[in-house]
C-alpha cells in the first residue's frame, strides 16, 4: 500500500484503495452508536451520500449461550433465555419451556396454556412499544418514545406482579411456571388493555399524520416477499412484505388456533409497512388477551409428572417424597428422552426456534437457538446499498432487532 502526504482535515485519509482516491469513502457505524440499537457494527462504503456496499459485523454481544446450555440442566437455562431478546423475556421463557416440553412429550394443562398466551401477548405489546418508540426517535419524533414508555411501565408493573421481577422474569419451568397467577392479576391486565385501545389510536395519529415520519419511511428499504423469505426474515419484517407466515397460525402452539385474531400484512414491504404491521399486531394482541382472560380455566397449572416437574413449595417443606423429587429435579434436571426436536414460537421479533438434541438425562447434548434478529439482520448487506446514509437509521429502526438475541 502506498502512502500519500496528507494535510489536516484531508478527506484522503479515509478513502480506500490508491486507485479510487476521492471516490469511495468507508464509514464505520457502531458497534456503539445510538441508531444501531445495541452493538451492531456496519461498515459502509459510500459514494457521496449513497451506500454502495455494506458489511454487517455482529458478535459484539456473543456470550456463548449455546455452550452454556450444554453445561447445565434444562431448567437452569431458563434465566439465560431472558437475556436473548431482552425486550420480551416472558416470550422467550415460554418459547424455551415449550421446546423442552415438546421433547419431553408433555401436554400442558389448560390453565398453563392460557397463562402463557397472556404472557406472550403482554411481551409482544411491550416489545413493539419499545420498537416503535425507538424507531420514531431515530427519525426525530422524540415524543412517541416517552408515550410508549409510559405504557411499557404499566406492563412492567404487571410483569412484576406476576413474576416478581420486572425485567429478567425467568417465569417458566419445564412443565409449567414458577407459580400460579396471583389474585388480582387478571383484573390488572384487563384494566391495562381497556385503556390501551385509546392509547393505540393516539400513537397511530402521532405518527401516521407526522409528515416527516411518513416521508422518511414510505417506499424506503423495500423488500419483496420472496426475497424476505429467502433470507429467513420472520415476524413483522416478513409480514410487512406481504407474506402472512405467522407461527401462531401456521404451526399453532399453546392453543393459538382457538383464539380469534388476524395476521396483519403489508403490501409494499417498506419501512412504513413494517411499522403499520407492528401497530396492528398490538391491537390483535389486545384481542387475544381479552379472550384469554375471559376463558381462564381453573385447575392445575403444571404438568403432572412428579419426577420431572418441580413440586409445589408447600409440599416440599412438609412431605418427604416431594422433597426427594425437588432435590432430584433441581440437581439432576428433568430426565429427557433421547431424541431431537425443533420448536418455533412467534416472538415479537419473529420466529424464535430451539433445536434440542438430547442424549437423555437432564443436560442437552446440543441446544441451537434460531434467533429471529440474526436472520433478519442477514439481509442488510443486500438491502442497504443504494440508500443514502440518512436512510440507514430509518431502515435499522424499522427492523426492530435486538443484539442480545442476534449474538447469543
Amino acid at each position, binding site marked *: 500500500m502506498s502512502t500519500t502526504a496528507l494535510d489536516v482535515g484531508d478527506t484522503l485519509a479515509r478513502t480506500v484503495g490508491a486507485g479510487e482516491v476521492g471516490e469511495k469513502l468507508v464509514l464505520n457505524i457502531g458497534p456503539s452508536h445510538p441508531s444501531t440499537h445495541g452493538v451492531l457494527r456496519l461498515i459502509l462504503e459510500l459514494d457521496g451520500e449513497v451506500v454502495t456496499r455494506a458489511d454487517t459485523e*455482529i*458478535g459484539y454481544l*456473543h456470550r*456463548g449461550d*449455546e*455452550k*452454556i446450555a*450444554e*453445561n*447445565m*440442566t434444562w431448567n*437452569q437455562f431458563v434465566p439465560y433465555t431472558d437475556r436473548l431478546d431482552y425486550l420480551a423475556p416472558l416470550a422467550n421463557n415460554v418459547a424455551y419451556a415449550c421446546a423442552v416440553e*415438546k*421433547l419431553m*412429550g408433555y401436554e400442558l394443562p389448560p390453565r398453563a396454556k392460557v397463562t402463557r398466551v397472556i404472557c406472550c401477548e403482554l411481551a409482544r405489546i411491550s416489545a413493539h412499544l419499545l420498537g416503535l418508540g425507538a424507531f420514531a426517535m431515530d427519525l426525530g419524533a422524540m415524543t412517541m418514545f416517552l408515550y410508549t414508555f409510559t405504557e411499557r411501565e404499566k406492563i412492567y408493573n404487571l410483569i412484576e406482579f406476576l413474576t416478581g421481577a420486572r425485567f429478567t422474569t425467568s417465569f417458566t419451568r419445564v412443565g409449567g411456571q414458577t407459580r400460579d397467577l396471583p389474585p388480582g392479576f387478571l383484573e390488572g391486565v384487563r384494566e391495562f388493555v381497556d385503556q390501551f385501545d385509546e392509547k393505540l389510536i393516539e400513537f397511530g395519529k402521532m405518527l401516521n399524520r407526522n409528515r416527516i415520519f411518513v416521508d422518511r419511511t414510505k417506499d424506503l428499504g423495500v423488500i419483496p416477499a*420472496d426475497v424476505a*423469505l*429467502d*433470507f*429467513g426474515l420472520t415476524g413483522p419484517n416478513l409480514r410487512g412484505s406481504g*407474506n402472512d*407466515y405467522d407461527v401462531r397460525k*401456521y*404451526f399453532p402452539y399453546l392453543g393459538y388456533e382457538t383464539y380469534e385474531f388476524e395476521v396483519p400484512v403489508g403490501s409494499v414491504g417498506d419501512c412504513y409497512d413494517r411499522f403499520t404491521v407492528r401497530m396492528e399486531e398490538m391491537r390483535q394482541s389486545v384481542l387475544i388477551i381479552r379472550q384469554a382472560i375471559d376463558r381462564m380455566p381453573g385447575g392445575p397449572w403444571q404438568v403432572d409428572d412428579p419426577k420431572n416437574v418441580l413440586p409445589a413449595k408447600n409440599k416440599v417443606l412438609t412431605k418427604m417424597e416431594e422433597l426427594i423429587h425437588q432435590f432430584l429435579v433441581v*440437581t*439432576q434436571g428433568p430426565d429427557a428422552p433421547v*431424541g*431431537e*426436536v*425443533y420448536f*418455533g414460537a412467534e416472538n415479537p421479533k419473529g*420466529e424464535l*426456534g430451539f*433445536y434440542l*438434541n438430547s442424549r437423555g*438425562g437432564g*443436560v442437552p*447434548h*446440543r441446544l*441451537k437457538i*434460531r434467533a429471529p434478529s*440474526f*436472520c433478519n439482520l*442477514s439481509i442488510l448487506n*443486500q438491502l442497504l446499498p443504494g440508500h443514502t446514509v440518512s436512510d440507514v437509521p430509518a431502515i435499522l429502526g424499522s427492523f426492530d432487532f435486538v443484539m442480545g438475541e442476534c*449474538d*447469543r
Partner: protein
Amino acid sequence: MSGLSGEGHGDLLSLAQKLSEFRGETSWQVEKEKLPELMASLKTQGFTYLVDLAGVDHQGEDPRFEVVYELCDLHRKKHIRIKTKVGEGDTVPTVSHVWRTADWHEREAWDMLGIRFAGHPDLRRILMWDGYPHHPLRKDFPLAGLSTEMPDIAFTAAAPLEGGPFVTNTASLAQDREPRAHPAEERSL
C-alpha cells in the same frame, strides 16, 4: 407440526434415508455428496423457507460432526429435517445459493464448530473475531475458555469460571455434576 412421510417426493426417497420419527417430526439422513441435488429439488417442491441450520458435535464418533437443516413448506404447512454427517477437516457442500439465509448460518457453524462449507462465497467468522484460533462450541473446548496468543485483544486469559459455585458439568453423578450437592456432613450448618 406434521412431518413429511415421503409420498410424492421421489427424490427424497431415492436420495435420502428416513430416520426415526419423533414427536411428529421426520428426520432424513443424506450423504453430503447428494446434499446439493436434494436441497435444490426440495426447494422447487415448495420448501422455500430454510428455518435453521445447526451444527452438532458428536465427539468420539466417526464422522464427528453433523449438520442439521430444518425446512418448512409454508403452503402445505409441512416441516422436514435433513441431516448430513461430516468428518473433522472434511467439507459439506454449501446451500447458500439455494437459500440465501444459509450464508450466515453456515458462517456461524464454521465459526462455532469448525465445519467447512465448500463453495461458500464468504466463509469468515461471524460471532467470534477474525483470527480467533478456536471453535468454542466443540465438545473439547472447555467452558472456562482457552487463552489466545493475541496481544492486541484485552482478554486473552481463560475466564476464572471453572470450578466456580455455579458451574455444572455433564458427569452422571449428581455430586460430580453439581458442586452445590455436597454430602450433609460437609456442610457447616
